[in-house]
């Protein structure tokens, strides 16, 4: 506390005598009905958008990471794995799309954790609103970040010569599935954001979980040459399912069953981690 508001005249802050009348003259407001869940969540989504606008640097994770990974993997492994970067890109791009977006989910937890530490959520939690609204609103903002990352990877891929046989429709289905799954996975990080003490704790746990999860999949190589035990791990990994489906969508060969599987996995994540998050939210001290 070093500065007094510049606006305050030397006689002291202006909310003195004349404002007494203003305050009294203000009509008594009828107590409005509480807002519906959608209104409340959208209000918090608006907050998330304002925050993205005010701190654009927080988008670096959804801009830098996808670009770096796409370029690096394409030119680092392309020649060795597929004969040429160009041919590898055809296989790789859906994989980097998945990886880039899933890595961005950890910031959901980091942001929530920061807000909790600053006490902003004390206000939200004492409002008569649908309790999950602040978190759902934040996730809507995150979904936009995931969309941005997806568009970036896809655009860069097209620039480098990636050609999706599924056409525009296939690409859109692929991106939609990746974003849906990422939003569902974000509920894991809202829970971590609530129960872990610091942002750095969330980050280190996220790295330990997300890197193996995305690398031990079919995102970068076909599992055919892997030892049996690893192949089993890769097959059981839900990210493999997501990558396979994304790849199929972009190739134009996706089946309804594949789409349903990704949606079911997403629903399962929300069904488990949604209630756990809200339980931790209500009990947060």
């Amino acid at each position: 506390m070093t500065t007094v508001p510049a606006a305050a005249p030397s006689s002291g802050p202006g909310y003195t005598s004349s404002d007494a009348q203003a305050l009294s003259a203000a009509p008594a407001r009828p107590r409005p009905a509480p807002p519906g869940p959608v209104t409340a969540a959208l209000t918090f989504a608006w907050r998330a958008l304002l925050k993205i606008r005010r701190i654009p640097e927080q988008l670096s994770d959804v801009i830098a990471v996808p670009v770096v990974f796409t370029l690096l993997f394409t030119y680092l492994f392309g020649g060795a794995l597929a004969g040429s970067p160009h041919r590898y890109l055809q296989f790789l791009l859906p994989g980097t799309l998945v990886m880039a977006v899933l890595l961005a989910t950890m910031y959901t937890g980091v942001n929530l954790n920061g807000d909790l530490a600053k006490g902003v959520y004390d206000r939200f939690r004492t409002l008569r609103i649908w309790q999950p609204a602040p978190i759902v609103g934040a996730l809507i903002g995150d979904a936009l970040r995931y969309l941005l990352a997806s568009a970036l990877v896809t655009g860069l891929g097209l620039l480098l010569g990636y050609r999706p046989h599924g056409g525009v429709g296939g690409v859109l289905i692929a991106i939609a599935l990746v974003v849906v799954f990422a939003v569902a996975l974000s509920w894991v990080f809202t829970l971590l954001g609530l129960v872990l003490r610091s942002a750095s704790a969330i980050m280190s746990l996220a790295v330990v979980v997300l890197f193996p999860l995305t690398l031990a999949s079919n995102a970068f190589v076909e599992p055919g040459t892997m030892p049996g035990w690893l192949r089993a791990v890769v097959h059981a990994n839900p990210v493999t399912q997501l990558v396979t489906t994304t790849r199929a969508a972009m190739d134009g060969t996706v089946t309804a069953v594949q789409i349903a599987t990704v949606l079911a996995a997403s629903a399962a994540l929300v069904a488990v981690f949604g209630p756990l998050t809200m339980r931790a939210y209500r009990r947060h001290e």
Partner: protein
Amino acid sequence: MAAAIEAEDLVKTFGEVHALDGVSLEVPEGTVLGLLGPNGAGKTTMVRVLTTLLRPDSGRAVVAGLDVLKQPNEVRGLIGLSGQYAAVDEYLTGRENLQMVGELYQMSPRDSRARALELLDWFNLSEAANRIAKTYSGGMRRRLDLAAALVVRPPVMFLDEPTTGLDPRNRMALWEVIERLVGEGTTLLLTTQYLEEADRLAHDIAVVDHGKVIARGTADELKAEIGGERIEIVVEDPAHLGQAVEALAPYAKGEPAVERHTRRITVPVSGGASVLADVIRELDARTIVIQDIGLRRPTLDDVFLSLTGHATFGDEDVEAADVEALEAAADAAGGTGDGDAARTVAAGSSSSEGKDS
């Protein structure tokens, strides 16, 4: 008058710490209860329980006729909270902060915007309306936070140490806002470490320490509880202390307290200024030279000390001498109104209060 806030035997333990150790209290509608206590007394925990942020281990709480534990969401519709940590969104502007709360109360965008501008004007934040709150000073954040709690003018308000860390001028200004709210019928539970603040704003005071209410009453009742007025004398020569006590004996209404190293005698009396005159004559007749003499009414500081055995500042590591010096400075500045300087210093030295939890 119905009670707007009612708590019964609230208990909350954090590990080994009894943050609330069976607290009961009642705030009649339209009145102000000052919850007065040092850091870590349980004040914030109490506010968090009553505002649905924290579930107590046991006990019962009713706010505006609704059970806090059974109908938390309904309670939320009737309360406003301004916490110790200004709960404003740093990356939103002042106006957006208030507008968001308005929209969460189902106001139309136009109404919530109008209300936001109105509140910013009251709190003298108009010029900062479109700056993000991160650039605000501590005092501005406090005001914005209070404004956010007032968007729909809740009938029951909770203010947790609203002026801690504010400079005297901002504190006075905030007091005026609070007085006006109460004048319009808002019920208020206010926590504070500042006796002066409780004295000025609260109809009733509950003194809390170690999670318990240790005294209750109006400021005057609490002062009366530890006795009425006293005469304080400082003699020039310590050898005269005995004689001085003798001279005072006929006027004393209780045991005199003698502090040898400061050559000070304090004795309870009644009869006001005329007694003081008599005492001066008596001392003069015995040719006892006095350095200082005065008639003192007890302050809430005295109440606090006598109740808890420690000063309000609550920092166990503050040297007793420091506390004395601060109190002396506060007294010198004159009981109510101008003791800010010393208390601001005191607040500075103990501003590191974590959440009471």
